């Protein structure tokens, strides 16, 4: 049920993201969503792709440091206040969000957000109990 995110270390310099994306393009890997967290010298690219295992192997083969991370994909109504409601669930249960970002595609009329938690299972349990729809990996990337 957890979604596999790839986290990739890159130097914060021209051409470096391009090099990594070329590896994925050559392997026919499609990026479904991508976000970058950066400091002055380097950054971490976090992405959800349609073929995570293949992408991971290809990147490692090309000497990139890349690791898989389990994250949760949560479906939310695309209307004011629905993200807030999800956050209330987390704070109530004292679950800290390490980071989060939005999915580019909508599923029907609903938005998909990606969340990273230290304790993913506790977060998942909380969400399910509160009636949220946690999107399955297979529904998201078709694998």
């Amino acid at each position, binding site marked *: 049920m957890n979604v596999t995110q790839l986290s990739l270390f890159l*130097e914060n310099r021209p051409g470096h993201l391009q090099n990594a994306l070329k590896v994925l393009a050559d392997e026919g890997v499609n990026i479904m969503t991508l976000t970058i967290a950066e400091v002055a010298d380097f950054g971490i690219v976090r992405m959800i792709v349609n073929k995570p295992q293949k992408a991971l192997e290809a990147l490692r083969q090309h000497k990139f440091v890349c690791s898989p991370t389990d994250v949760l994909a949560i479906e939310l109504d695309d209307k004011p206040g629905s993200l807030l409601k999800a956050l209330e669930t987390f704070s109530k249960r004292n679950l800290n969000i390490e980071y989060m970002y939005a999915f580019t595609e909508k599923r029907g009329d609903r938005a998909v957000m990606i969340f990273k938690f230290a304790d993913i299972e506790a977060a998942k349990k909380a969400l399910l109990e509160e009636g949220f729809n946690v999107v399955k990996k297979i529904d998201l990337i078709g694998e």
Partner: protein
Amino acid sequence: MLNKQYEAMEVKKLKELQRERLKWSLTHAYNNVPYYRQAFDKAKFNPDKFSSLDDLKHVPFLMKQTMRDNYPFGLFAVPMEKVVRIHSSSGTTGNATVVGYTKNDIEVWAEVMARTIAAAGGSEKDIIQVAYGYGLFTGGLGVHYGAEKLGATVIPISGGNTERQLMLIKDFGTTMLACTPSYAINMADYVEKKMPDYDFKKTKLKAGIFGAEPWTENMRKEIESRMGIDAYDIYGLSEVIGPGVSCECSQKSGLHVFEDHFYVEVIDPETGEVLPEGEKGEIVYTSLTKEACPVIRYRSRDITRIYRDACKCGRTLIKMEKVTGRSDDMLIIRGVNVFPMQIEAVLMEIEGTEPHYQIIVDRKGALDDVEIMVEVNEKIFTDELGALKGLAERIEQRIRSALGISAKITLVEPSTLQRSEGKAKRVIDKRQL
């Protein structure tokens, strides 16, 4: 003193003993190792004609590269059935060098390590916690056998797991600690940050034997005051035997070389010429009793000087100064001598793996500017930005406290640092000095 007969031998007698043993060692190497036979023949050196210690200067040097080229067992002088132990150094810059020991070699090693521990005040009454790594590295097992030979109680905890180390020091009443000096500081840091109730001064710890990496007098003072112990430098290299080549005594001024087993010379690293006692140069080792892996004029690359003084401890053995540098790669940064291997030791301690790094020195205005590029690998990579940034900061901090220089740490992608023939180029000095 554990073995007065040899440690306090009259110098004239000692030299005669060395001459006899050296002749045996040269002959043994020549007769049993093809490399030595070829090298001696080429230099027209005949071990049968060896008659005085001075003749050794005609014998060719053994280079580290030769040891690597003969990987794994090419320099062994006895058949494998006589070899009871193998050790290997990962080497700090390339391929492994492999060494073997016969039963007698292990006995000699235990003897010199037992003397080393005794020189630091140890006896059968002591409880010695061996926090050097056990395994192919010679540190752990070297100290272990020496401590047992001395009759002390050994706690073979090996490296790592700092909290447990500290707990055993307290619970088992450890009196002596054996580890790298940087790990000792790491323990003191750990106590300061995480165990406010722990007090070294309330434990029975009285001394530490620290080695396997270069360290400074400042680090000694820091360890001694923070842990409330006496800190002794011990020295060795796996090519020669492992720890136990030389050690400090109660005077903490210079390391006595166990000359009945190892013959030392200091040479000019450029010309290879033997320098008179007291002059600084590269120290060269010749084993006198080793059976499995004799080393004849092994160039250590360690820079030091050797001298004989009337040491108050009573040993007549020659002394070497604390090794603080290597002939191949010393840098002077803002007046501080820095060796890439010191930086390597810090990275090793923090990352727990052999690091790929490059030091870039430049001059900005009147000041030297240092940047250390460290390749990120799967082991240290984390998905959290804050943790990665914290790692860089931790390295920066340790470099400052261990080496006394401030350096900017830059994390870079793997395999981006220039390598020549598989060997990383460690230093780029852009200064016009």
